[in-house]
């Protein structure tokens, strides 16, 4: 039940962030200057997947990030000084360059198939 309450709280406080992350991408999001392959390794080693999943798909513990993450400026601002349950990732532990790589990885995630094309989800 403690687990349930924790998950409830996390899911509630992240609701606003989820909504932001799932907002259709702005038409012309600039390409990230980071390297997606490097970003993938950092995404794992820094533990981003713990709350957001290996594909950035999100879950009860953290919102969906991919395939359309927030633009880098907003992404970086939130990672440095999160306002809800997410722990802060300061420059001391994640450099700006690394953050750009991670953002590039999230940008590189392919769009999911339409649910209507998946028999199990019809």
């Amino acid at each position: 039940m403690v687990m349930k309450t924790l998950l409830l709280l996390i899911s509630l406080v992240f609701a606003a962030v989820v909504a932001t992350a799932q907002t259709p991408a702005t038409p012309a999001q600039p390409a990230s200057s980071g390297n997606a392959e490097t970003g993938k390794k950092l995404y794992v080693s820094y533990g981003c997947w713990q709350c957001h999943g290996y594909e950035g798909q999100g879950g009860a513990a953290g919102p969906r990030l991919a395939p359309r993450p927030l633009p880098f400026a907003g992404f970086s601002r939130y990672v440095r000084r999160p306002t809800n349950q997410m722990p802060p990732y300061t420059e001391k532990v994640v450099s700006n360059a690394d953050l750009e790589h991670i953002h590039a990885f999230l940008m590189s995630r392919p769009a999911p198939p339409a649910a209507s094309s998946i028999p199990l989800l019809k």
Partner: protein
Amino acid sequence: MASKHSVDRRDFLKGAAVTGAAALVPGSVAAEPPQAAAPAQSPGGAPIAGREADPAVDVEVLTTDRPGGDFMVDVLKSLNIDYIASNPGSSFRGIHESIINYGNNEKPEFLTCLHEESSVAMAHAYFKVEGKPMAVLCHGTVGLQHAAMAIYNAYCDRVPVYILAGNTLDATMRRPGVEWAHSVQDAASMVRDFIKWDDNPVSLPHFAESAVRAYKIAMTPPMMPVVVVIDGGLQEDPIPPEIAARLRVPKLTTATPPQGDSGAVAEAARLLVNAQNPVIVADRLARTPAGITRLVELAEALQAPVIDQRGRMNFPSSHPLNQSESGGPLIANADVILGLELFDFWGTVSAFRDSLHRSSRSRIKPGTRLISITASDLFSKSNFQDFQRYPEVDVAMAADAEATLPALTEAVRRLVTDDRRRAFQERRSRLEQAHAREREAARTEAAVAWDASPISTARMAAEIWAQIRNDDWSLVSESGNISGWANRLWNFDKHYRHLGDSGGAGVGYGAPAAVGGALANKKYGRLSVNIQGDGDLLYAPGVLWTAAHHRIPLLTVMHNNRAYHQEIMHIQRMANRHQRGITRWNIGTTIDNPNVDFAKVAQGLGVYAEGPITNPRDLGPALQRALAVVRKGEPALVDVVTQPR
């Protein structure tokens, strides 16, 4: 129980001839005619005349055919208890033998368990399906301590478990050595902080009253575990004739659940009917199948949204008023919130931030009126802090919510005017649309990472659903740790569709609870499904053997993220906060290197198993093969390597 007559601890030879007077329990041991006894006794059981005058004759009485344990079984049968779960233990060897021979191993039937924590967790979930308690036998100091964590879970979850604890109180009768280590002055003290009631009977009549009383107390809301200590001597020794003469099983009359005060019900109805944005929140509401029906009636009388916190199966997931996935905005916008058996009302209306400086804030608008109906207000203890922050409510009914709902719904219906009815219908239309949007969003979001490996929890939930949706299924596990995907994708419409969670969040509950729930489902022919955490199963995996041994059909699908993942996130949080490195979250938290081969573990315990499954395309066929085994009445396990949540 060999003893010489001169030192017999129960002095049973003194008057055994009067056992024939024990006709107060028809058909029971106390009513049986006298039996032929040991050579030292007369046919009626009385001591042979003259023997006491000849102390040189050292006559040993080696047998008895009417031990106290038989009467204890009579009492258990009167309570209609189907199963008694236990590891065998010498402190209850007397009643164990009485159950299997005198009682013919029926009502209760002995369930062989491999850990007392498993026994209690099985009983915990069994109750949530069947609505009546399972008994558990615990052996002395060691067994009750092993059981303690699971007892605490049941206590927190307000579930009755009927615990009998063996002990040898008479120090002069204890076998030297281990029996001393396993005996205790006050056995129930080990768990008294988190049970509802206990007793330590000193005679069989005392046992009878306490056993029936314990059942009644356990079954009166708020329901909780109870402990009756059964002394070894009482179980094993012959029923003393003077006792047999007055043995009887007391009549059990369970108490009706307490309903809310009529004035408070009327006030709650007035607030709800006049509210613009009422919200109903239910947690451990539905004690019985009627709970779902009653909540639907209230929700439809108001056309109000329901947030099911899923402590029990409270509300159909496909009902348009089910807004469980939209809880945050609804709570924030509510002007009246009705909480039904909430584990944490404060946490429902407050936000708490786990940061360096912990902080909290209200999530509700000023002036929002809060109504609470909970039986937990009727019984509280202080040491263990499961009662959560103090909620500042406006109407507090110390009552059973399920029992109170009919009166509340009727009061609401009486107050609804035509104007309000029109407003309610408009609200209903908005909620129907929101519900449909959420169901569609669930399908869209489930498609993300659809082909990922490790397998996404959404994919796993969808694959399982595809295999069971046409069965009469029951999710007998906690479902929260796969990001609620089962709740979002499956159709929960009956009281046994899910069973809530552990209550106390003590890890190790999931696997045995699933087996207990599946046992309860077995006689109804239901298909039981367990989505099983890896760390949880490793606490006491022997329960898989219990499922195999007792032929309990159960599909276990491993949610194997190879970690105590909740703790990974906690360690990550600390590392971020302290800025000393954020890449060592795996130390002390992961369950890899080596990876646990759960299929081999299960196979070694007699369970059909496959895995590890890492390719999502392999999952469906593996589930089909496992289900073929389950549908034949056996347990099966599929190990699935998954995303963390």
